[in-house]
């Protein structure tokens, strides 16, 4: 139930935003994330943006995963 889906903010008004994932758009409340900016990846839970994804941190994790993958031979 604590599922939160990352979706990109494509439009916003004062309290609401339109977020998109794979071409699917939906309106969510930005009451819990009033400073959300267009283009950011937001975490959407129960109709509200509850947080954002940090692109630098994500890149760091993905780089680490590539290191683990590269260390594996023969798969």
């Amino acid at each position, binding site marked *: 139930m604590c599922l939160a889906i990352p979706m990109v903010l494509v439009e916003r008004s004062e309290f609401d935003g339109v977020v998109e994932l794979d071409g699917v758009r939906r309106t969510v409340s930005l009451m819990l994330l009033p400073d959300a900016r267009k283009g950011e990846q937001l975490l959407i839970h129960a109709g509200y943006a509850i947080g954002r994804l*940090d692109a630098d941190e994500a890149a760091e*994790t*993905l780089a680490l995963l590539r290191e683990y*993958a*590269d260390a594996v031979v023969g798969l």
Partner: protein
Amino acid sequence: MSDSAQYSDPRALAGLIGQLREVAGGLDHRLTFMEVCGTHTHSVAKAGLRRMMPPSVRLISGPGCPVCVTPVDYLDRALALAALPDTVVCTFGDLMRVPSSTGSLEQARAEGARVEVVYSPRDALELARRRPQSRVVFLAVGFETTAPTIAAAVAEAEADGVTNFLLLPGNKTMPQVMRVLVDDPQLEVHGFLLPGHVSVITGWRMFGFLAEEFGIPGVVTGFMPTDVVQGVLALARQVAQGHATIANQYGRAVTTAGNLQAHRLVERFFEPADSAWRGFGVVPGSGLGLRAAWAHRDASSIRVDLPAPREPAGCRCGEVLRGVVDPPECPLFANGCDPELPVGACMVSSEGTCSAWYRHERWLEAGT
């Protein structure tokens, strides 16, 4: 490769598991790590991570499914409210099939009770606006992730003067129940995979007490397969090095202090309250009640007749939630209780431990 494919990359998983095997192999005892989040329960089962673990690493589930830990008398009250005139009960879909003492909300709706499934607390608020002559009661369940969305809906109702929007408070918070888990002599847990989306709200620092007071490591962990294995590896490394700290594997989403706007909204409307959990009984300070200033929105003060609370006979959901038995140890598991015709709450919700084992790992033995 898309981000999501990279977080499930079999080569990265193999590399991580190889490291885990090395670290765990250097220890002279088996490691038991517990996750306390239904989304982790589901991720672990769906990706088949339990059987990828080295034999000396065991993953178990705790009370991480909000629907599962919601006690039967809460549902009894919800059903009684739905039977009142001019009252509509709104709920997240997960609660619909959970058995009360007299049947589920789904059955009650089929028999004419006014129960509406909503995706967001805001949808319940909209319903209240559209039907000013009805009393709309939202079933407020869920952990720290969900509570702010409910507080936000109440804030909107207050701002717009929507007086017919009420809550049946049932939200729960993790820290106090985790203290109970740590103190349980039946349970030996060497570390916790901490819930990533709870931590988006609370910040990872909230879990500091595990390491500081109990010397138990914790790693805030994301939900993709590589996230979970990275979390397990980080826990195993801490045990191997004799450390106990709270680490943050899910740095792309989780900060130290969390979402402060969410804290402010929850704080405005709710206060810590004693709360009953299936399997645990009443845990002091483990729930959220509405503050006295908002008593006019509290549906728990509405007088209703309640049946004597009755749990399904033979169901071991409570022990499954405490992590002391695995689903196959319940006599009903796959033997009269399955996701089509569930007997207990842990089989109803797709995030329930029994449902996750049944759907993805039915052939595994208890203790795997």
